[in-house]
C-alpha cells in the first residue's frame, strides 16, 4: 500500500488538514508521498518536512494558479498513477469534496467522504465515517484498486515530526479548465471558517438580534475562535449562511464549541455533537443542548457573555 497525500493550499499557503493527513499516514505506518498542484506554493520543503514528509512532488503550471476542479482532477489522477499510489488521502474540506470525486471517477476509484477514523487492517483500510449527520457511524471498506479517502478536519491533530523533504517540481500540462474560479471573495476579513476552527462560538435565536452579535464576536476574538450560528439566526437574516452549523449547515468538530442562546434542536446537534467539549449558555434548564453539554450555565446570556469577556480580558 502506498498513500498519496494531496496538499491543499489556498492563496499560497498550505492548509492545516494537509499536516493532519501526514500525521495520519505516519500513524498508519504506510509509505506515503505528497502531491502539490498549482503555480506558486509557499515553502513546501520546510513546511511539509516539519510534519514528516520525505517525498513531495510539485505539479506546476502557471495556469494552475486558478483552481479548476476538472483541470486539477486530471493532474491529480495522473499524479496518483505516476507516483504509484493506491490510496489518495485528502481533506474533507470544500476543495477535497469538490476535487476528490472527480479524481476518483478518473481513477475508477471508490471514495469515502468525511472519514473520522482510518485504520489499517492487513492490506486493507478500515474506515469509519459518520452518516445521517453523525447519528450513526458506518464502518466501511473500499474494494476498488485505488481508493480515495477524505478525512474530516480536526479529527487527527497534526504532530510535528521533522524530516527532510525532497521536493521534485514537475511541469505538467493543464488540460480541462471547464469550470474556473474567477475570484475568491472572502467573507469578513481573515475570517476563520467554522469547519477548520479549533474553537467555535455560536449564537442562536436567544441572541435576540444581529445588534447583539458583538458579544459572540468579542468572545470569539478572545478565544481565537470562529463564529457560528443556528439556523434560526441564519434564517432571521442575522448571520450569513456559511456560518450555519447543523444538519443542513456545516458539520464541525472543534475542541470547544460554545453554544449561546441555542436550544439544541436535533438538526443543530447533528452538526456539532462530535465536538470534544461543549459549553451551553441558555436560560432554559430544559433546553436539549444541556443534554450534550459538558459544561452549562443556566442563566441569561446577556449577563453571562459580557462577564466571560470581562474575565478573559483580565
Amino acid at each position: 500500500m502506498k498513500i498519496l497525500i494531496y496538499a491543499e493550499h489556498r492563496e499560497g499557503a498550505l492548509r492545516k488538514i494537509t499536516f493532519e493527513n501526514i500525521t495520519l499516514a505516519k500513524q498508519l505506518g504506510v509509505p506515503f508521498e505528497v502531491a502539490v498542484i498549482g503555480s506558486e506554493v509557499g515553502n513546501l520543503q520546510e513546511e511539509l518536512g516539519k510534519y514528516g514528509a520525505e517525498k513531495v512532488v510539485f505539479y506546476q503550471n502557471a495556469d494552475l494558479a486558478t483552481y479548476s476542479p476538472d483541470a486539477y482532477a486530471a493532474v491529480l489522477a495522473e499524479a496518483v498513477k505516476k507516483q504509484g499510489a493506491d490510496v489518495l488521502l485528502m481533506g474533507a474540506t470544500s476543495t477535497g469534496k469538490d476535487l476528490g470525486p472527480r479524481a476518483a471517477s478518473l481513477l475508477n476509484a471508490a471514495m469515502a467522504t468525511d472519514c473520522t477514523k482510518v485504520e489499517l487492517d492487513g492490506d486493507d483500510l478500515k474506515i469509519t465515517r459518520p452518516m445521517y449527520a453523525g447519528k450513526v457511524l458506518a464502518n466501511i471498506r473500499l474494494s476498488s484498486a485505488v481508493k480515495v479517502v477524505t478525512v474530516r478536519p480536526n479529527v487527527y491533530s497534526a504532530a510535528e515530526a521533522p524530516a527532510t523533504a525532497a521536493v521534485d517540481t514537475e511541469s505538467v500540462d493543464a488540460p480541462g479548465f471547464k469550470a474556473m474560479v474567477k475570484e475568491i471573495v472572502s467573507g469578513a476579513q481573515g475570517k476563520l471558517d467554522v469547519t477548520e476552527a479549533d474553537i467555535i462560538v455560536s449564537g442562536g435565536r436567544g441572541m435576540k438580534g444581529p445588534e447583539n452579535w458583538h458579544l459572540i464576536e468579542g468572545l470569539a476574538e478572545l478565544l481565537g475562535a470562529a463564529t457560528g450560528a443556528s439556523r434560526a439566526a441564519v434564517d432571521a437574516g442575522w448571520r450569513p449562511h456559511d456560518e450555519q452549523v447543523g444538519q443542513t449547515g456545516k458539520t464541525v468538530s472543534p475542541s470547544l464549541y460554545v453554544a449561546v442562546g441555542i436550544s439544541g434542536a436535533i438538526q443543530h446537534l447533528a452538526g456539532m455533537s462530535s465536538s470534544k467539549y461543549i459549553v451551553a449558555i441558555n436560560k432554559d434548564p430544559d433546553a436539549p443542548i444541556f443534554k450534550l453539554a459538558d459544561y452549562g450555565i443556566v442563566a441569561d446570556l446577556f449577563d453571562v457573555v459580557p462577564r466571560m469577556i470581562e474575565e478573559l480580558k483580565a
Partner: protein
Amino acid sequence: MAKENLPSFSKGMFSGVILDELVFPYPKMKEEEAEDLKMMQDSFRKFAEDHIDGQKIDEEEKYPDGLIDQLKELGFMGLSVPEEYDGFGLSATAYTKMFELFGGINPSVAITLGAHQSIGYKGLVLYGNEEQKKKYLPKLASGEMLAAYCLTEPGAGSDAAGIKTKAVRDEENGVYILNGSKIWITNGGVADFFTVFAKEEMPDKDGKMTEKISAFLVTRDMGGITSGKEEHKLGLKGSSTTEVFFEDVKVPFENLLGERGKGFKIAMNVLNNGRLGLAGGSIGALKVVMKEAIAHIRQRKQFRKTLSEFEMIKEKVAQMTVDLFATESMIYLTSGLVDRGDVDYSLESAMCKIRATEVTWHGVNECLQMVGGLGFMKEYPYQRYLRDGRVNMIFEGTNEILRMFTALAGMHERGQYLRKIGTALKGPIKGFGVLTDYATQWLKGRVSTERIRDVHPELAAAKVQFETWAKNMHFSAERALIHVGKNIIYREMIQERLANAAIDLYAMIATISRVDTMITEKGAENCSVEIKLCNTFADQAWRRVRRNLLMVDSNNDREMREIADFIVDQEKYPFETI
C-alpha cells in the same frame, strides 16, 4: 344533500341492537389518498415551521401580515370544496387528519381555517344548488372569499331556534331584506361570504303565517354589512371574532340556501359535519403538548430521578395515552362512517366532539401539571394550548347541549317503539326534533342482535364487556323512559349519564375494532402495546359505564336540584363556618 333514514350505530345501541357491520372492520384510507394527504401535511408542516409562531400570534393577538394570503395561495382554503369546483374534495378522514395537524401546530390558525370550511361554506357544499356552487365555491376554494357561519345572536346561543334576525321578502325586487345582528362570529372581521340564518314569515301547511328559519348566502358586497371590533379572547387570539351587523341587506332570492323554512335543519347538519374537524383539531393539540411534556419529564430530575420515573407521573402519561388512543379510534371510525355516505353519523360526531375536547382539555392540563411551575410561564406553550382549547367545549354546540342531544336522539328510537312517549320526546327543544325525525325502517326486519362478531382472543374480554354494558345501557335507557316518561326531556342528569355511557361504549367498540383490524393486518405479536391500550381502556370504560348506569336509577338528583335552587335563590354561597 344529506340523506334521511339512515342506519345509526349509536341509535341502534340505545335500542339494543348492535350494527356491527358499521364498525367492523376499522375503516382505512385509500392508499392514493393517504399519499396525497402526506404531501399536503408535509407542505403545511414546512410552511408552518417558517411562518407560524404560536407564541407571537398569541402575544400580538393577530397573524403576521400575509399569513392568510399564503395559506390561500397554497390551497388550504379549498379542502372541502369538491374537485369540480376547483377544490380538493378531501374525504372526511383526510380532512380530519388535516385539522389534526392544523390544531397541533396552531389552534388559532385551525379555527380560522375551520370556520371558513368546516362551517362557513359547508352549507353551500351540502345544500347549495348548481348555480350557487358554480358562482361561489371556486372563489371560496381559492380563498378569494373567506367564509363565516352566522347563527349565534345575543339572545340565541344554545337555543339557536330563538334567533331574531329577520328576512323579509320583497317580491317586487326579488330580494330578501335582511336585518339583525350576530355575535361571536369567527372570521367576522375578515369574511366576505356569510352563511346567515334568519327568520322569515311563511305559510305553514294549514296556510297560517308562521316564522321559520331559512338560510342565506350573503356576501359583503351586497352592502349593509358591518363588522364589530375584534373581541379580546382567552385564546385563539390570532383568529377574528366579531359581531356582524346586517342592516337592510338586499339578498337576492337566488341566494336562499336550500328550501325556505328549512334553515334550522341546515344549521344543525352543517354543525354535525363540522364537529369532526374540531375533534381532530383538538387531539392534534394534545399530541403536540404531550410531546413537549414528555421531553421535559425525561430529563428533569428531582430526588435524583427523572420525573418520568415517578409513578404518579407515569399514571398521567399512561392515562392520557389511553384516552387519546380511544378518542382517536372514535374519531377516525366516525370519519370512515361519514365517508361511507350511507350512515347517520350525527350522534357519533357529537360524541367525538365531546370526548375529544374534554380529553384534550384534561390532557393538556395534566401536561401542564407534569412540568410544574414552568407550565405556568408564558414562554412555554402549555398555558397557551390550555387557553386555546378551552372554547372547544363551548362552541359548535356546548358539550352539555351535545350530551342532551346524544341521549335524547339516542332514546328517540326507543321512544318511538314505546309509542306513548314517542311524541313527547319530539317535544319542546326544537333542535332535536329535526335531528331525530327519522324513521325506523333500517331497524325493521333485522334480526335483533346484541352480540358482535368474533374478535381476536386477546380482545375477547373487552368484547364481552362491551356487549354486556351495551345491553345494560339499552335496559337503563328503557327503564328511564318507562319510569320518567316524557319528563325525560327535563331529567338532564339522567341524560348526561346515558350520554356518558354511550360515549364510553362507542369509544370501546371503536378501539376494539381498530386494534382487531390491526391484529388481522400485522399479527398480534406486533400490536402488543395497542392491545394493552385497548384492554386498559375497555376496563376503565366499563367501570365508568356501570357507575353511570347505576346512577340512572339511584342518585341524589332530587337533592342536587334542591340545593341548586336554594343557592340560586340566595344569589350566593350563603354559609359560614361556626
